[in-house]
């Protein structure tokens, strides 16, 4: 596990996506931003490995 997994990995993708959007329901823009930040930090800690996190930071950049 030393590479960022960019293949299909989430079971029931539609359900996850719906949960993600639902989590933001009723939040203001600022609250949503704060929520996203907390979520990123929680997920990043779960991954833990700096190398994978670095790959994710790179992969998340907007495609030119």
């Amino acid at each position, binding site marked *: 596990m030393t590479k960022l997994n960019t293949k299909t990995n989430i079971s029931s993708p539609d359900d996850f996506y719906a949960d993600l959007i639902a989590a933001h329901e009723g939040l203001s823009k600022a609250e949503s931003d*704060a929520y996203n930040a907390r979520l*990123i*930090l*929680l997920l990043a*800690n779960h991954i833990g490995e700096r190398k994978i996190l670095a790959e994710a930071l790179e992969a998340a950049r907007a495609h030119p």
Partner: protein
Amino acid sequence: MSKIFETPLYPYQRSADQDAPAPARHPVIVIGAGPIGLAAAIDLAQHDIPVIVLDDNDKVSWGSRAICYAKRPLEILDRLGCGDEFVDKGVVWNLGKVFFDERKIYEFDLLPEEGHKRPAFVNLQQYHFEEYLMHRVVALQEEGKKLEVRGMNRVAGIEEQGETVLVTIDTPEGSYRLECDWLIACDGATSPARKMLNMDFIGRVFEDNFLIADVIMEADFPTERWFWFDPPFNRNQSALLHKQPDHVWRIDLQLGWNIDKDEEKKPENVIPRLKAMLGEDAKFELEWVSIYTFQCRRMEKFRHGRVLFAGDSAHQVSPFGARGANSGLQDTDNLIWKLKLVIDGVAPEGLLDSYDYERILGADENIMNSSRSTDFITPKSDVSRTFRNAVLDLAERFEFARPLVNSGRLSIPSVYDGSPLNGADDDDLPPRTRPGAPIVDAPVGDTWLTDLIGNRFQLVGINTEVPASLDVDGVRVEGMRISSAEDSDGHLQKRYLGAEDQAVYLFRPDQHVAARWIDYSENAVRAALDTATGRA
């Protein structure tokens, strides 16, 4: 009652040099009788190098200023012969609390590692520190060392002429000139010496101001470091409360950028702020107030021919993390033994270039850590603030987020990895004590390793014989055998041997590891010593 920082400690006295027909020559002149200048002078005197310290003032530091000292600087002070007075007076602390908005989000215990003579941190006002250094200066003078501190001697000009540095000095009785072989500028962040020599000082200015106040109060706040992010009494800013000896408390309040410094410093504006923080009924006396705008920057090089910069004159960091005076002490710790060998003619001048390598590495580490703390405490963008607050929110509920909270990363000494002075290493020995690393203390019988080593090249055979002394082309190496069996807790074993049964370590005069082996070999030690003195 007159306070220590109001009493002249080294009052102006006319020197015979002022009446000399031609400028008197001294081996070393130090500019600045602050903590770093005095430490440099004490170190030089201990090495029997005559030294003159010039200061434009005659008193110790005004106000507490640098207050927090880490273990490594305390070990350096031990080597300089003034550790006990410092630690006996200082406040030892281990517990920190972090607040966000109105609530405490967590607390931490530094849990200092066992098996060290000195604690992880001690708080002490800078004026006491300078006072204790002056006690040591006087003790050395009484031993006959040529060490002089000249108060009210302001350096007005510096001229480099080949192997001579010519210094012009203003005094209350007019100017005079001195010549020296080496000039050490410890004249602080605003270093007039740096300006006189037209040297750069580049880096990043942080757009922020901090109100720094010392208050005297009989309060039952515990001996802890309290840090607030966005507290009700200082909205959108930070605050810090830290205890010093003599019921003096240090309070730092972040003020933001657009403020009127002179207005903010007035007691009628400071006191309401402090009451909001400490409570309306808190009884306190304001001892000292200052407003601090900090910067993170350093000179491109700390050595300029025969002029050497040390401490804040060479590098400046934010106050979070005890990295100012602490790193300055590590500068002179690094510099003075090298200068001694060069002055004695047993090492080439090029040895001093390793001062640049090693202490620029230290300065860059400090600047990086200090900048990161500052970016966390004072987020520079909306998204940075969002993440900062997310970390603080999560830290209250989840342990994982606490190491991300950055209210100042407390100073730990640099390992001089990649230094040209590093000699042989053996990978089977623990990485922590690799060449370039500072000594890691450990109990040895009824004393400490840090008390056995320093001020000379020291060969240590752990569970193995080494010669009692060795002369390597004019540089003396002392040898000593110690036994890991004497330390029943196994600290020495763990820190210096790992899985091995024995090892040989060569320490530099500043207690950093120069080289290490499993088995002793005279040729290997000679080669390592040549490398460590810039002769290889």
